[in-house]
């Protein structure tokens, strides 16, 4: 799993049918010091995360396919949780 910041969203009409009923947000993976680290990912959002929130991403595609109800969905990254802004990293 990875920490990431939500930095935007995408809309798409021509897409794989499994993405019909879900929100696609742009999440920029960040390291522990909130510095961008790696390419931005388009993630599924079952939780309703707001922009600029820090979230926890998971790359377990099998859960994403169950959530979308389509065993042939190319979905992979999805939002597993929203990090508490007041929470302190124990580093």
């Amino acid at each position: 799993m990875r920490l990431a910041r939500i930095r935007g969203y995408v809309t798409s009409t021509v897409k794989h049918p499994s993405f019909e009923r879900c929100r696609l947000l742009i999440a920029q993976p960040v390291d522990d010091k909130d510095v961008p680290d790696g390419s931005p990912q388009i993630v599924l959002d079952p939780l309703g995360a707001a922009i600029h929130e820090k979230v926890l991403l998971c790359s377990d595609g099998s859960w994403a396919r169950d959530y979308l109800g389509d065993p042939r969905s190319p979905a992979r990254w999805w939002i597993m949780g929203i990090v508490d802004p007041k929470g302190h990293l124990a580093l």
Partner: protein
Amino acid sequence: MRIATVIGRVTLSVRHRSLKGERLLVVLPWGPKTAITGKDHDYSIVAYDELGAGVGSTVAVSESTEATRPFGEPTPVDAYCAALIDTLFYQAEDPRPVT
């Protein structure tokens, strides 16, 4: 899925038996700074496409094992064009003052 810009297409003369009637796009996946600078893309990859993306369009590319899911039988494809992006909203920093 990574955001990628389509820069070209690939036509094969000899192909792996699983790639029959394939449509292959050469795409440049976006890096952390690409949404702002418009360059600094990641290295280009070739993605399998069933949606008809043209050169210059922005697509969402699914990679690794999830790219093989849309095919019924196991297919050695590791990048799949999953969506054509219509609108894309990106804001690099939180404009609200830190309270």
